[in-house]
């Protein structure tokens, strides 16, 4: 009752202000210095993003006349660059999704199954360690080191274009063989890190729970299907976000496998690389608009799986 009264006569709000004032009074010089540094650091990281965003809405003259981080004036404001960027990139966006989504899902699934196998208790620890060491070694192979073997592999050893000839017969552009090659390449490259992440997660799962399931009559495969997989949600969020961002943003493999932005199967990164560059110089506004537009799917993935991501990282 008395609480309600307090609130209705407004002294509740007063209490809050008093509390705030008391907190301020209690702050030491160190506290203030800490907050100043934090605010500066946040600003330092945010300025490039802010600059990019305002630049993408500027006309050519506004870019020359205003500071990079200053907002465009009413006269210098335009949606034109965004429109051009979307027109140019939309095709690539579809192509990117075409390989990024399957590659992400497949590498996460394969990683999860491999990790499950590596955490099964009745397997000799020395064997497990060897397999794990090999897999982890895979994480440290730099992209650049595999570029030549990768090209040879797809051009000489496995001629996927010929194998999939029945698909091209259906009227699909045979440039799309690059998409299939990208899926396979990214899965192969993503499995090690996915396995490692899942293994760490599965290590924390209760052994007794798995044993209980075994005693309940479930085979190894059934334990995975019915116990491990349903409980892997948070780690799948982490792996999906990580893998999707990696694959979506990767330029090197697309350059080697698809190579030209004129290809029908050109991914968004490839088109973005050439967007807004011409003999006359750089169109900064267009490049910024393109970059922001191309980053939208990765942002969407973060937002979609954000809660699970936090849970998975905490685990």
């Amino acid at each position, binding site marked *: 009752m008395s609480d309600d009264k307090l609130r209705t006569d407004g002294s509740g709000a007063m209490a809050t202000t008093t509390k705030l004032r008391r907190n301020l009074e209690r702050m030491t010089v160190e506290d203030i210095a800490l907050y100043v540094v934090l605010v500066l650091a946040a600003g330092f990281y945010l300025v490039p993003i802010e600059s990019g965003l305002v630049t993408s809405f500027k006309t050519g003259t506004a870019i020359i006349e205003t500071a990079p981080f200053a907002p465009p004036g009413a006269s210098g404001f335009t949606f034109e660059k965004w429109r051009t960027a979307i027109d140019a990139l939309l095709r690539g966006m579809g192509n990117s999704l075409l390989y990024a989504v399957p590659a992400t899902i497949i590498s996460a699934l394969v990683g999860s199954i491999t990790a499950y196998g590596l955490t099964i208790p009745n397997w000799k620890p020395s064997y497990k360690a060897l397999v794990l060491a090999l897999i982890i070694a895979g994480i440290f192979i730099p992209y650049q080191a595999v570029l030549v073997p990768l090209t040879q592999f797809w051009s000489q050893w496995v001629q996927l274009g010929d194998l999939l000839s029945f698909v091209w017969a259906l009227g699909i552009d045979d440039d799309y063989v690059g998409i299939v090659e990208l899926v396979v390449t990214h899965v192969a490259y993503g499995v090690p890190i996915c396995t490692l992440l899942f293994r760490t997660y599965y290590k924390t799962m209760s052994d007794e729970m798995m044993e*209980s399931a075994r005693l*309940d*009559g479930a085979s190894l495969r059934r334990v995975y299907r019915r116990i491990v997989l349903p409980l892997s949600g948070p780690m799948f969020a982490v792996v999906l976000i990580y893998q999707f961002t990696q694959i979506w943003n990767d330029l090197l493999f697309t350059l080697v496998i698809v190579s030209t932005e004129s290809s029908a199967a050109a991914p968004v990164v490839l088109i973005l690389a050439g967007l807004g560059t011409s003999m006359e110089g750089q169109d900064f506004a267009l490049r910024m608009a393109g970059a922001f537009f191309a980053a939208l799917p990765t942002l969407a993935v973060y937002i979609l799986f954000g809660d699970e991501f936090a849970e998975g990282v905490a685990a």
Partner: protein
Amino acid sequence: MATLELDSITKTFQDGDEEIVAVDDVSMSIDDGEFLVVVGPSGCGKSTTLRMVAGLETITAGTLSIDDRVVNDVKSQDRDIAMVFQSYALYPHMSVRENMSFGLEESTDLPDDEINRMVSETGEMLGISPLLDRKPSDLSGGQQQRVALGRAIVRDPEVFLMDEPLSNLDAKLRAEMRTELQRLQNDLGVTTVYVTHDQTEAMTMGDRIAILDGGELQQIAEPLKCYHEPANQFVASFLGEPSMNFFDVTLDGDRLVGDVFEYPIGDDVRADLGETTDLVLGIRPEAVELVEGGADVPHEFGMTVDVVEPMGDENTVYLQFDPDADTETGATLVATIDGFTRVSEGDTVTAHIPEDAIHVFDRVTGEALHNRSMEDAADQVDLA
């Protein structure tokens, strides 16, 4: 329902170059429908033994048979065994009903409605029907414990294995569940192996108890037999709270000579001791009596009260032979006496150690040479 036979079961672990023996040549046979409690201090190998029965650990040597069928190489899921874990090990993403149906779905071809009916029945029996649609995380510890039990019971297995299932509950709930588990096991008549470190559970629940220490089986017998006729000093010290009093003594004619006292013994006790002279005299705290009178009668000793721990129904009294002796080294005799007897610290009392209640152990091997006989103990109860 089945019999369970452990024949010279041994388990060794490899730790670098070292070989650690966790379970050493343990043999026991458990009758159809029997409730066997395996008890011992932590690290004694009791859980490892249970896990070998479950098939979760391989057996290094020896044979394990269920109903005369050797199951050493049979996989866990094919042994028709249900196990209740200390952590309950419920599946967190499944409702209680799904948790309980899981085993039936995986191990049988029963149709869904039949499984549902069995789960509902078991739920009713355990009083968890209202919880069937909840997730384990919404349940209290006691309720989770019941679900874990239900998950085992609903499968109607050949053998139940329980690994300290009550140790995560609070004292009151633990006492309740102890009684309930016994009742359930009686009703179901399923052969049960129950592992615990709690001697109260061991004494009260089992048809028989098996006491393990250092991976070796010390004794397997009915609870009261283990209590009154322990096979060795370890069993004697492990069972009973407060634990049995032990005094190092040497046999000298017909007297046991200790550091601070001498204890005369009769012919039948003397006969049990044979040629062994390095002995340990044991006496249970509740067998010690505080009596009137001087200390010149044999078996009676003048002592000083050091500490009194009132428990309400009884007092635990720490007595010292020599009041000036250091508490650390001076021989202390613990006695449990009636709660209404008034004694306070510093009092001089006379303690009677009745000869028919003493135990004598070989100091080297620990083996019991003389025990109070169970008949004598029973007679006393009848007289009272």
